[in-house]
């Protein structure tokens, strides 16, 4: 049961990561002038980056827990 939950969690996080990265790529290109001129990320981009970091970390943690759970 735990394994099933972890597999679904990993798939959901992967989907979330894909959506985040797509949105981020578009936002970066829309704000490219500001980004290039000042080297400062707009607030939306910063929020997307932090969400991306969180999703990635949770995804890594879920993978580790899945492997440890399965092996043990």
């Amino acid at each position: 049961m735990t394994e099933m939950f972890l597999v679904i969690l990993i798939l959901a996080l992967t989907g979330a990561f894909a959506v985040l990265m797509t949105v981020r790529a578009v936002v970066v290109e829309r704000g490219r002038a500001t980004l290039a001129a000042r080297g400062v990320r707009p607030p939306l981009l910063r929020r997307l980056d932090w969400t991306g970091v969180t999703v990635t970390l949770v995804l890594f943690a879920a993978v580790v827990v899945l492997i440890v759970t399965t092996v043990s």
Partner: protein
Amino acid sequence: MELAPPRGRREPELLPPTTVVRAGSPRRRPRGLAVPALAAGAALLWLLGLHPVLPTELGSLGLIAALSPATLLAYPVLLAAVVLELLRRPFRPRVLAAMTALGVVMVYGLQPASEQTARITVSWLHTGFAGYIADNGQALQGFDARFSWPGFFSLIAFLTKAAGQPDASGLLQWAPMILAGLAVLGMRALAVTVLGDGRAAWLATWVFLLSEWTEQDYFSPQATTYILMLATLALTARYLVRPGLAVPLPFRGRSPRPPPMPRSLPRERLAVQGLIVLFALALAVSHQLTSLLLFGLLLVLALTRRLWSDWLPWLVLVPALVWFALGAKDFWWGQLHLVIGGLGKVGSSVDEGFTDRFVGDAGRTAILVVRVGLTIAVGTLAAAGWWTRRRRGLRAAPLPLLAIAPLVLVVLQSYGGEVFVRCYLFALPFAAILVASWLDSVLGTRPAPGAVRAGPASVRTGPRLTRARVVTVGVILTLLGVGTVVARGGNDAYTSFSRTDVAAVAEAYRLARPGQTISGISTDALPLGFSRIGVDPQSALAVRCPSYFADPRACVLQEVPDYFLVTPSEDNYGRIYYGLPAGWTTALAGDLVHDGKYRVVFDENGSKLLTRVPGGP
């Protein structure tokens, strides 16, 4: 593979040369047809010198000892033509492209052209894996770790079924030349992006072509994913790197300014990122190592602030991680120690990847020395290239970092004793770029690659071109090329096979009933595994009986395989690695038959298939 410059992007503003080159002046320039004629002469020499080579004719020095003088002479002649063409003002890209294609054929097509059938046991085994998927529609669980990354095998299964072929063995023999040729194209695209479309980029392409001795271009997931990796790096460098891999970051005061935007269009950048994600998905399901290496290389670009998209490395890593967790469970379940057991054990990696490989007779040792020598030579020349660029004020950190980044692999694990081979393979594209920078500076007279604006770096003129410098470049390229030909064919005494070897194995497949064991002596010296995967146990005695060379007969009688294969390649293997006398496999087969334990069911040109006599051992 060569990409058109993105719209809105200008070529690097290289300053025109400021010195007049004596050797390049019209009076001394090679005539228009002289260079193509020289290259054609090289091709003719190579073709005329080719002759069939069988494993029985090879010793521990491998293929090089069996080559004719004409074939050997063809390499320096071709490289002389390449150097002469590069000295022309302007050189002719079409002539260089044709000579590069010829170089690919001469270096990577040598073995397919001179040997009867495909070499390297693993390429035959990969055919069997693809055949299993074609027949069953899925990978075989619990059989082999490579089935956990079935992307390549599934593609080959699809292609063979779509083409109506019984298996993929028809693709094996020329696969190294095709795959290595594609890798050279990838290298060319990367070199043009990094160095501009000048002489240095051609030199980088040729250094790569002449230094790839690792033989990781046989029919395998590694060979195909390596091409995808080069394509990803070339696309990234062209569209997503700012201001360019070989260009120093602009400084404002003492700290670097924010890097400028890439000179590509927004839709181009989005399309390229989408393409890279597609490549990452293909890599994730096809090869366990390439995704990680590509992640590491892209991370270097991100950490040196060159990537427009900071998340690009993670776009490559996440698919690989998710596949590892969900798709490769069969691999890590029960053998997690293989993945994490080698972490930090550098000594173990060095022992397995270097020290333990120095076994065998003097010829085998000489081949290993050539490989180590080539590696050291490329590393030294790359360091010289880095130093030359640095002296010219071109302090771009990514290039040297990318060239040494794959060495991190040594800290992670031994990769079955192949860690240094893989490190060299993944470092080679960037090392070749650095080596080319040095060779270009030796030829001199042009602004350094990456010199995009006027300044001390770009106005410095190169040294006057002398005959000695031209000869130096020609000799270095020739030594690299001949060394690579020697190194690539160094194991051919036991990794190449004859048609009768393959026929003996096919006969075993025809005769064996499901569950009967088919064995040979060494896993490296038999074309085993190209069929009946998962039906018949197929293995080598060397795996279960490591000391077989001390008493091979006792080993066979202990394991009692139902079918036992004896080939000249195995004979060579025992001679080279363990000092066994020539003909020891024939004597072994004779003993087994004389004892009444086995009888011969196939015997042609030294390739024998023995079957166990019912009621025997």
